[in-house]
């Protein structure tokens, strides 16, 4: 095992998030009486190639935690260190660039662009990375991934012409196309029926293994959580268990 494998890909220390009652994020002063504490002092370490499920009842702070881990939101206190880099010491734009380089996303509501075909949706993250010949490379990579999720025949279809399961498979292909070190999934099966969910989960884990990606997902789905190596249970913004 080499050095980089021992180092956690994601290290979380004392992560807290509080918002004022009107919804604005509050700063370090988490003792503010008017503040609503969504997350409180979360600590966590995730190794490369590991899979972690974040579970908990509605309102426990799962999605907020995911947003903070991915650098989509800023915490009131604490640190998130991604591959050795303290995310919140970076500017918003540098964080975005870091996301583009290292993180992939799968969302509950798929978040496919309606005016793009399946293929174009998958190509988009690569197109955003300025490469010499993004067009051809991006297309090849996107076609290959769509093939892997079984959508070769549907790649020129628009999201509105695809079923929920197919849309989520497109989203999975899009998440893997940049070969991210870390994949965040927010309720990836939340909008799908049981059978389709199973199919989508299979694709996600197959790609995860094949590409040695670290997987962090938020879910209500016990079946899905059970397939992860570790499960973190949140309750009222605190880590209840981490198995």
């Amino acid at each position: 095992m080499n050095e980089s494998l021992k180092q956690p890909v994601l290290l979380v220390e004392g992560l807290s998030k509080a918002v004022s009652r009107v919804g604005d994020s509050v700063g370090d002063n988490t003792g503010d009486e008017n503040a609503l504490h969504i997350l409180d002092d979360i600590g966590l370490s995730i190794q490369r190639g590991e899979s972690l499920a974040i579970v908990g009842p509605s309102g426990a702070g799962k999605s907020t935690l995911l947003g903070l881990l991915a650098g989509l939101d800023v915490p009131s206190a604490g640190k998130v260190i991604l591959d050795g880099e303290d995310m919140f010491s970076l500017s918003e734009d540098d964080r975005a660039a870091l996301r583009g380089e290292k993180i992939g996303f799968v969302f509950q509501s798929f978040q496919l662009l309606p005016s793009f075909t399946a293929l174009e949706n998958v190509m988009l993250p690569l197109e955003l990375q300025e490469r010499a010949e993004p067009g051809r490379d991006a297309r090849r990579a996107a076609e290959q991934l769509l093939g892997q999720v079984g959508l070769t025949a549907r790649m020129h279809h628009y999201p509105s012409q695809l079923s929920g399961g197919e849309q989520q498979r497109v989203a999975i292909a899009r998440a893997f196309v940049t070969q991210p070190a870390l994949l965040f999934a927010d309720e990836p099966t939340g909008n799908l029926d049981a059978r389709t969910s199973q199919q989508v989960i299979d694709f996600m884990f197959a790609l995860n293994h094949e590409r040695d990606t670290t997987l962090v997902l938020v879910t209500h789905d016990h079946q899905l959580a059970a397939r992860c190596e570790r499960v973190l249970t949140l309750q009222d913004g605190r880590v209840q268990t981490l198995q």
Partner: protein
Amino acid sequence: MTGRSSTSFSFAAIRLSLRMLGRDWRAGELRVLFAAIVLAVSCVSSVGFFTDRIAQALMQQTGELLGADLRVVADHPLPVEYDQKAERLGLHVAQTRSFRSMIQAADTARLAEIKAVSASYPLRGVLRIAPQPFARERLTQALPAVGEVWVDPQLLQALDAKVGDYLQVGFSRLRISAVLTYEPDRSGNMFSIAPRLLMTLADLPASGLIQEGSHVRYHLLVAGEAKKLARLRRDLTPLLQRGERVEGASDARPEVRVALQRAQQFLGLASVVAVLLACVAIALAARRYARRHLDTCALLRCFGASQRRISQLFFIQSLALSLLAGLLGIAGGFLAQQGLVVLLGDLIVRQLPWPSWTPAGVGLLVALGGMLGFALPPLLQLRDVPALRVLRRVPMQAIPGRGLQAAALLAYFCGAAMIVGLVVHQAGELVLGGILLAGVLMALMLLWGVAAGFTFGLHNLLRVVSRRSLRGRVSVWHLGLVNLTRNRRATTLQVMAFGVGLMVLLLLGIVRGDLLQTWAQRLPADAPNRFVTNIQPAQLLSVQDFFTRQGMTGVSLFPMVRGRLTAINGTAVSPQQFDNPRAQGLVRREFNLSWADRLQADNRIVQGRWWGKDAGAIHELSVEEGLAKTLGIALGDRLTFRIAGETFSATVSSLRSVQWDSFRANFFVLAPPGALDGYPVSYITSFFLPQGKAELLNRLLKAFPNLTVIDIDAIMQQVRQIIARVSLAVEFVFLFTLAAGLLVMAAAIQSTLDVRHHENAVLRALGARRRRLRQSLMVEFVSLGALAGVVAALFANGLGEMVARQVLEMEYVFNPWLWLVGLLAGGLGVGLAGLLGTRQVLNSPPLAVLRRL
């Protein structure tokens, strides 16, 4: 790790922007935005191309338009000295004389614009003739031979004559040897009341057409080297007498220039209204586009795009879109200008050259200004969309933003600069541009106010009615009106947009007709319709006798002395003293003086007293009040005139109002009998010639070939035709305004489309029938259009009334059709367009819509 996000304005960025633009285009997201830019550019460039072609004709072909490089124009014979000076300098010279006179063929007589030319005419440009009317024309260096004339095809037709026939021209009989199809120094139809007859100068004296009191333009044409021309101009300037002027390349054809300037200003400003509306459509469409891209931007941020990158993406997209739409708009404008050329072209200049590239440049600037100024600001706001939106909904209003960014401010500035620049460009000067811009904005604000008041009032009224009559049931009316008032500002905007377009169409389509008709009806049926001028003193008795023998006893002959005003109260007057072009013209040229002992029925003393039979009144004058006002003449002023080289002075003892449209012979300045004795005089009369009595004129002209008969009916007919064509041209430009109104509506409908989809899906899921929903949409759009129609009728009526009172000084008869036509046209037109625009709302299955949400 700093600099990780620094992205350059790279080729890759451009490629990605264009690719995303292409995808949005394919998905139909850009149609209204694109159409609005195309429309704005088409409108501006069509007017631009058209006026540019006329300006080009004036600039490139000035020599041709003058028939020379330089010309001296006068209303009296020019001194031979001028010719000699030019010849001594080695310049080429030619002379022409132009005047109107009657021409007779076998049994018919017609007024013609006669031009008699010397052998070297024209010095610039070439004549074109044809052997027969409508036969193939050819260039010619020749001129009509002595004893021959060339005539317009129209004159041939009017006289029912053919090539080879003889015409009576004054006392001479001249043979028609060719049809004249083109003459370089002739302006458009608007400036000529009669067709052309070209003859040689050598035939002129024998015709006896030029006599005392004849209205003749004398031209000395000069051509040659620029240096020598400049020298000649320098030499001639101090020698010029009153009524003489030198015209060069830059000051040629003032009448054509004025017409061009008016066309440019009026049509240009009409196009600005369409551009303003198109910009509103652009802004509305861009807001929706931005709203629909919130998720895209959140996702892009999620995938690692920096804020700068997002701004770049939309900036490049805007630029590309505006260039593309701009080019298409220019092409559309070029096609559309052909319409203006057909309607107006030959009124101003006979032959138009190819346009320059300037209007295309202006079109592109409009495209860029419209897009950057009105679409970019909401798009730039997208850079502030938080990436967190991918997990949680954040509405557009809640996007943090940092107030107005510098880039957005710059973008707004671009838009404002484009509009101001455009108005100034169309007006041709800064101050006038500012005044006109303020005028247009004030008019639009007034329209906005009325539209807003109507929208508000009708909404409240109908809400009360629908509530009372339907007792809580959701009525079709209620549904429709709720939509109409969902965004009252957008509704007001649409009422205003359609209101402007419809108003102009009503004004030009109905009110113009009403006004002309009312005016025509006000004239008595037997108002004089013929003027006879050029009657010489020796013919006075025999002409009078002629009329008496025809049973026309009431025909009076009035003496007419041509004089030029040279001084008021001993101070010399010059055209430069006056700003008013009419005043300048009145001072520059001779006008008609007359004498009378009795005041005519259509004259009224407004100040001072009429001399009556007062024998001592020989040094008094009575001046028409309009002339007095224009030239600043007051009661008691002493006026000095130059008449046939001599000076005549008298004091103003009364000011008169004259009812000019009585069509009787009237004069600016009247003197008591005897005061003008000894000066050269000719006589004028006017009379009513019943239809079918043209024979009488032929007999009159056979007996007195030097007389000039002016056919008022024909002139009125021509004026009516010109008004009709100018109106059509203005309507043509305002069609763009209507189209812009439709685009504003399309953009407004689009901006509510998502909500409409949702509501209709819910209503249909709850059991509402499609027919009912369609009816509610109809209520919405028909009310909108009807409101716009009423606003349009209100303004058209008001403007019509204003024109009637201020310009025509008569009562405007209220036309109920105006309101009905406005209401129906607005209701039907907008109703239909609205239903078309929302048909997809009714046609999408509710389940598909609900699933999408």
